[in-house]
């Protein structure tokens, strides 16, 4: 085991400074900087494109938010946690594979040994401020418990918005109404799964 990490005792202060030009102080210098930055040739290129498209009158743009495009089942928006269809129990077993595979390191879970001698997931969070919606968590999940949903409207006052378990877990009444749709995206069982697996013999 490497001991390197213990030799650096200034972890918090270990920044590298990038040299930056001093900002102008005199009013005239400030004015000059504004003019120089504002009136570049590219500005007029942009203005011309906007004007050209405006006068053509055959717009292809969807009038969002009045209109919304249908999205593919493989679309990766805010996550959902699913329940088992029969019992209504959470599918998540707390294996921690999503936590491990997450490349943005934004998933965390708390687990404990519960009264029924099972592993219970007491809390589960995804830090959406860090999540890059790569879909690895859904793909790695052995229980199809975490999947990506279709909710892509995430405007929020907070950049680092936490998603708690209760926010993404299928509500029980919703489940009873049969509205929890099976997920076809990343990590879902392939249609020919039966042909591809080797069966384990049993002695019963």
């Amino acid at each position, binding site marked *: 085991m490497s001991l390197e990490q213990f030799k650096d005792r200034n972890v918090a202060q270990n920044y590298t400074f990038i040299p930056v030009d001093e900002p102008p102080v005199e009013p005239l210098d400030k004015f000059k900087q504004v003019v120089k930055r504002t009136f570049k040739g590219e500005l007029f290129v942009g203005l011309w494109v906007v004007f050209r498209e405006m006068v053509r009158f055959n717009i292809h743009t969807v009038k969002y938010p009045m209109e919304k495009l249908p999205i593919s089942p493989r679309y990766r928006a805010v996550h959902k946690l699913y329940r088992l269809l029969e019992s209504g129990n959470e599918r998540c077993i707390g294996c921690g*594979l999503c*936590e*491990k595979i997450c490349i943005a390191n934004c998933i965390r879970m708390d*687990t*404990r*040994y519960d009264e029924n001698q099972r592993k219970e997931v007491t*809390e589960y969070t995804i830090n959406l401020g860090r999540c890059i919606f790569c879909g690895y968590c859904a793909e790695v999940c052995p*229980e199809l418990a975490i999947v990506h949903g279709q909710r892509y409207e995430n405007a929020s006052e907070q950049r680092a918005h936490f998603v708690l378990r209760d926010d993404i877990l299928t509500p029980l009444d919703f489940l009873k109404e049969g509205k929890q749709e099976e997920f076809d995206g990343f990590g879902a069982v392939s249609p020919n799964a039966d042909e591809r697996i080797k069966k384990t013999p049993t002695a019963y």
Partner: protein
Amino acid sequence: MSDITIKIDGKECKAKEGEYILNIARANGIFIPAICYLTRCSPTLACRICLVEADGKQVYACNAKAKDGMEITTLTENIAAERRAIMEVYDVNHPLQCGVCDQSGECELQNYTLEMGVDAQHYAIKDVQRESKDWGLIHYDPGLCIVCERCVTVCKDMIGDAALKTVPRGGEALDKELKNSMPKDAYAMWNKLNKSLIGPTTGETLECTDCGECIAVCPVGALVSSDFQYTSNAWELTSIPAACAHCSAACHLYYDVKHTSIDNPEPKIYRVKNEWNYVSLCGAGRFGYDFENRVEGKDEAAFERAVEAFKKADTIRFSSTITNEEAMILQRLKEKYGYRLLNDEAKRFQKFLKEFSAVSGQALWSGELGDIHRSDFVVSVGSQLKSDNPRARFAFNNAIKMNKGAGLYFHPVKDPVVEGFGKNLIAVNHKPGLEEAALYLILDLFGDKKTLPKDVVKYLNTFHKKGKKTVEETIKEKVVEKVTKKVKDEETGEEKEVTEEVTKMVPKKVKKEIEVELNGLLDILGAPEDFDDRMVKMLAKKEKFSIILGEDLINHPKAENLAKLAGLIERHTNFKVVVLPPKTNTLGVSLICDLDDEAGQYVVGYNAEGDFVLSASGKGDLDMPAINQQEGTFTNVDKRVVPTYVALPYKGYLLNDIANSLGVEARLTVDYTAALPEEKGFKALKFDDLPNHYTNRGEEIRGYHLENREVPADKKVKVGKIDKKEAMEGEIAYRCNPVLQFNEFTQKAHEIATDAKLYVSSEKLEKLGLNEGDTVRVKLPAGSVELAVASDKFIGGDIVMVPDFDPSIGADRLFSVNRYQNVTIEKV
């Protein structure tokens, strides 16, 4: 043993004759899969996966000894087939619950299943119901158990509890057809596997010293810590290497750290891991990890008061549970401001060491715990091993089990754990105060009489007397008997009675008086009668000797004389001597600090009593970091300076901050590592340059060894004689902690937290007419203390134990000159 060369997969490997092939391969970086084998323990042959081909013959690498010129192939087509079949068998009925299993990610079953490329299962058998068991600190799930028997092996060969065994599983018999159709070794292994599970030797509950080594060695998730179960996945934890802070063994371990919960990002220690192939931990090390002192931030007001207190003080009293660097800071403060440094226990050790080296001619003792592991004759005097230094106990047991060793155990308190090490151990429960006699006996039995001082030899000879002894012998006696037989006459068919005389040899027990040489020392010690006879057998073919000397000798009214005798043993016998320092860093403190005898007017205490107290347990006037929040070094029983690292952050002030504001300046506490006194054997090495690991060969590469220098020895050694009047009679209390407890820090750790009690054996409890939980007043010459009574199943006899892990008892004061005191016990 001679050096040999063998070839493994074409690579030339140097080894000693008689070494196991597996160990040679590991030492040379060649991979041979093995599940059931534990380095330092005996091969069990449960898994059979370490099959290799040696000179064209299939052998098991874990129990095949290497011979010169051997050629070994680690993989052939047949071996590959065997190994794959073995892994398939292990996977039969193994629950597919890796998702929730605690071992997932560091599981040997997972690893080898992938390694052998098991992608399909060919075997099946009906499973049996296997309920999980709760054994206190340890949780056993037989469903996950692969019966590799590593737990059983380590408990017997290393720890010495022998608390686990294989129990019947009650499964169906294997299909006979399989014997022909499946690989041979895989079938044999399955046949055994399907018959057994693991269970306690004492019925349903596990009765052991709770070291938890079985958890460490378990390759799967069958044995886990009850507290850790299902709280974290292995890969989420960061391992911080450290030295255990609880006793002078300062074992190498890892603190596994992760954030406390989603709400609380503060790091927390979840469990302790160890390099179980090379070092075994005791329960205090494994379960007593969360003794950190959490503080909100820097308490400036308290810090100001502390600096004021230091300016006012003339004495610093401190405990030995500090690092070498902190001891160095205290010494520097003394040099600059003339503080008196008080540490009674280290002072006694210092005196002991001084007398010892004046006789032995060496600054320190010669042995280390590794020498005990390697020796075949071990003696222990004056130490309650399982409480004082469990690693020394493991080494003692390991030597007896693995090296066909034998041992002598001298201690006033009967210890069923030590007595259970094996038949080749004589336990002598002498009276307290007669420790000198034990050391004289060692000199008498093993000392080189030619070099020993003349008067010592003379004195020893006074104990030898010719005497008579009745022995019971079995002799074969000729007996003539008259036997009457009925014989049928062949011709006539009549029956006749014929009387014949028959001579027979009949074994008979005869009592006989013979003239023998009697050793008076044995009588003084109260050794068992057959001591001499058993010693003859025990000493046959013994080559490596070592002796453990414990705290009883150091904290003793005649410590000076005992130290001299220890010095004589070091010099004039071929014993490797190991002196157990009483507390974690007693050796370091006694080498670094100039200690004083008397306190002055105003005392600052560091983890000790005082007018102003700095405390790492959070009970003082200014908080200090606990050992798991500090970096620094300890000097352990192996005379090794070992580093430890910061496992948990500490937000408050350090001793170094106080020293800085007093004008003894250093940026970091570990800047003092290179400044440790070289004249005492320390080396001028920087903390960051200290290594801290074990090699595949099993070598301990941790810190560095103190240099054991020659010191001028006294030409004329005067040693005191045994005073039989010193033997203590009556009701006796012994200052000793129960298993799992060492100090205020182990008392605080949540898994093993407990109140201090008066520990008595079950027979003594009956004699006193008390029940467990009764409160008693224990009166000692230096004061009295009220304690609840607890029965301790790991001691026997009449001596009661007063612990010192709880500082509020004030055991240091009550037992200041002797670990044994006469007491009266009254029920409250």
